[in-house]
């Protein structure tokens, strides 16, 4: 394998280090939450999303849902923010 590598450097394999980094960041965010020493990632995300949207639109805090799906290959973060009707008008009024 190493001899092979020596002569086939024109076709490098894709770098795997960035994948390692991504996987670790997601995993450790989860595990730190489980340990209870760091705030739960989802709770933190929910709070910050709520704060960011609330600066522009008045909304019901209960209508902000942040969910994480853990899959075998990938995990997804689902953010569901329900906005009240006529929020565009209140935005226009605010600006």
């Amino acid at each position: 394998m190493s001899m092979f590598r020596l002569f086939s450097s024109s076709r490098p394999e894709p770098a795997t280090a960035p994948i390692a980094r991504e996987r670790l960041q997601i995993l450790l965010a989860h595990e730190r939450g489980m340990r209870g020493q760091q705030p739960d990632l989802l709770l933190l995300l929910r709070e910050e999303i709520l704060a960011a949207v609330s600066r522009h639109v008045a909304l019901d805090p209960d209508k902000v849902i942040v969910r994480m799906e853990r899959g075998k290959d990938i995990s997804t973060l689902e953010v569901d923010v329900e906005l009240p009707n006529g929020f565009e008008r209140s935005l226009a009024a605010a600006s």
Partner: protein
Amino acid sequence: MAKVLVVTSGKGGVGKTTSTAAIGAALAQNGKKVAVVDFDVGLRNLDLVLGAERRVVFDLINVVQGVAKLPQALIRDKRLENLWLLPASQTRDKEALTEEGVGRVIADMRNNFDFILCDSPAGIERGAMLAMRYADEAIIVTNPEVSSVRDSDRIIGMLDSKTVKAEKGEQVEKHILITRYDPARAARGEMIGIDDILEILATPLLGIIPESQDVLRASNVGSPVTLNSPASAPARAYADATKRLLGETLPMLVPAEPKGLMKLFARRAA
């Protein structure tokens, strides 16, 4: 007053014992009076790496239980008069190590040494807990590899919650020591980057020790790499890390890949 350092990692085989021996010897070479303490009850190896395996009479458990006095159990290094080893027990039950007993021995040693280095066993069980329990500072040995980084994160969590310092509302000062760093793999993008590790673990870097045959050769002959081949890349990296522990500011050198012809040989050998 002595400083108590724990050398820990969570994961096994990352280089805790090698690093304890190398840094312990380097501290002694810097004129400090140093004791290295093996906490790996049942699987002791620090004695072997230091070449003192045939001189062990009493051990940590003997001292904890009062069977032997501390000066009887401490083994003075034959090369460095400032370096002492307190070996672990190879046979006794690890339950014999009590928190209170370890506390007494460490407190006793604090009066007689500048540095006490506690070589932690792998894992997060009792032995690892006791090794870190009385630490003022921690060296977290991490390999640039996902499982090692994850375990280091876990250990950092324990250092921040289960040590005497943490329980008093103080902080154990933490340092990351990256070992078995392979420049060739780093250049190919196969190894998680140092910046990434430090960002993920949010802990400052003490040093980067390159993967090297010199480390293996040193342990073969029972001599810390900082003594056995002081001019080698890993020995210089350990010496620099030790100076940083002593408060010096040194530039952090990232081990580079050998160039040209050297590279060809290095790859072939790998």
